[in-house]
């Protein structure tokens, strides 16, 4: 299936797809107002569990993947309990700490390779198909959730938790469900990653990954269910867009650009668009900063795609 795709595109889509799934793992607890910087940790739990099952116990991939998700879900509920009474920056730090502890465990546990990492995980040639399938299921799930009473209840919890509780909403169970479900989705993403990259170690699922996942959702727009998909897709596409821009730049006829200062600008721009890690990331960071000024609610909100905000440079306090 999908053999017509060349290897490079395929790998690109797999990683983009895994990022999309990870973005949805953040979206679930976020819908109830719980901002988690620990989704990378849940990915690690799913990744390591499924890899242990396939490599050490010969479990077939699909079963191992699902089990990894389940184990991650249990971990999610466990972390969800202390998270119930913690908010804001404290919750960020709690989830961050959790993620880092998982990293440390991966580092010091020799059963999963310790400092050398978990090597030679069996490669799953159908990863792209699995990823696509999971994404489709997630989209179906979240489109329904958004229109349902439970989805409304989650939004209510986000907007005023005490009021929701007093109006008969079982806030505790819903928050735990969100954390567990989010962790399960992250676990699936982790399992899919492990069996495609065939290698992982304690640095694979790190803080910056958790941060990236958060960024996908906030940039895409956390108030609709298309947001995570949009954010992950756009931000993953940026390096490719930059490369396409550079290729287009090279098509310009030489006579147009052969004089000063155009040629200097051209050289700088061409150099900058050269698809190299550091420059891609600089562009990424700048986009984040600009977005938070002109469109802080994300690309896609309830009122649509456009409408930019004007920055104000002095806050009036009194």
């Amino acid at each position, binding site marked *: 299936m999908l053999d017509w795709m060349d290897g490079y595109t395929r790998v690109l889509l797999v990683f983009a797809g895994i990022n999309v799934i990870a973005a949805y793992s953040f979206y679930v607890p976020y819908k109830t107002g719980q901002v988690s910087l620990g989704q990378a940790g849940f990915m690690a739990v799913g990744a390591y569990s499924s890899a242990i099952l396939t490599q050490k116990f010969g479990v077939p991939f699909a079963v191992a993947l699902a089990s990894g998700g389940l184990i991650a879900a249990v971990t999610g509920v466990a972390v969800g309990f202390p998270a119930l009474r913690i908010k804001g920056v404290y919750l960020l730090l709690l989830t961050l700490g959790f993620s880092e502890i998982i990293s440390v465990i991966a580092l010091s546990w020799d059963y999963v390779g310790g400092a050398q990492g978990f090597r030679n995980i069996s490669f799953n040639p159908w990863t792209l198909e699995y990823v696509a399938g999971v994404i489709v299921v997630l989209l179906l799930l979240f489109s329904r959730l958004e*229109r349902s*009473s439970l989805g409304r209840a989650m939004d*209510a919890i986000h907007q005023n938790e005490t009021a929701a*509780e007093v*109006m008969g909403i079982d806030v505790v169970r819903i928050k735990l469900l969100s954390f567990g479900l989010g962790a399960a989705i992250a676990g699936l993403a982790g399992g899919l990653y492990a069996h495609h990259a065939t290698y992982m170690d304690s640095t694979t699922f790190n803080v910056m990954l958790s941060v990236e996942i958060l960024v996908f959702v906030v940039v895409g727009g956390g108030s609709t269910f298309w947001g995570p998909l949009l954010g992950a897709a756009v931000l993953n596409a940026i390096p490719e867009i930059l490369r396409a821009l550079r290729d287009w730049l090279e098509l310009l006829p030489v006579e147009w650009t052969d004089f000063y200062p155009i040629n200097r600008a051209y050289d700088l721009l061409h150099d900058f668009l050269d698809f190299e890690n550091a420059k891609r990331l600089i562009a990424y960071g700048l986009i984040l900063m600009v977005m938070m000024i002109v469109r802080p609610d994300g690309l896609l909100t309830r009122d649509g795609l456009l409408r930019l905000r004007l920055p104000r440079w002095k806050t009036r306090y009194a």
Partner: protein
Amino acid sequence: MPDVSSGGICLAIEGLTKRFGGFCALNELDLEVAQGHIHALIGPNGAGKTTFLNLLTGVLSADAGKITFNGQPVDDSRPFRRTVRGIARTFQNIRLFPHLTVLETVMIGEHCRAFPSVWAAFTKAVLQRPFGECSEERQMREHATELLKFLGLADRREARASDLPYGEQRKLEMARALATQPKLLLLDEPAAGMNPRETVELDGVITRIRERGVTIILVEHDMRLVMGISDCVTVLNFGTKIADGPPERIQEDPAVIEAYLGEEVPL
């Protein structure tokens, strides 16, 4: 209209006490609210009225005392369970969901009646048909619309809660609380910030709510409203009950007058 004089006891409070460190907010409160009554709770600021409401709804836990609701003891630690049992409230400092529409807000109140458990809500959400809506959603919407009509907010259904003027926000709070189908409704200073015309309208609303069979506890400062509408009035001062009875008797009670004015006023 329910027969008020022979109704049972909706709410019985015995020895309810709440301390915050060294400060005693509520001291051995005894109180009975009859079915179908509008029972007012008044007192100067800081008397313990809001603490009482918080204890009733389970937001705070009592240090001592018993609460009995329709004959059953109330000791649920989670506020939402008390709401499911039939105790609802509005907030003095309006606590709406800023980004939900008016209709959606009221439907939040409907949620606990339509879905007995989170699991039921989740399975229903996941399994619902891709187009159109499930029967629970339709029912909830119909109930919510009816409540909005009852409170005169029907034409504001699609407005954002945070965009409403103050008076309509108060009405929305009541609609939301009513959506939980309470047997006992706690109104926390519903007339705060209202002009006399709005207060008269509120009077009518509260009466109509009572006619639907809901017992009401009214915490208020507006004496005209309180004395005009209540069947029974309890007066608190510094966390202690100082008077209890029909409005006419309370108005003449010297202890009450002293509590409000700080001195004895010759009658």
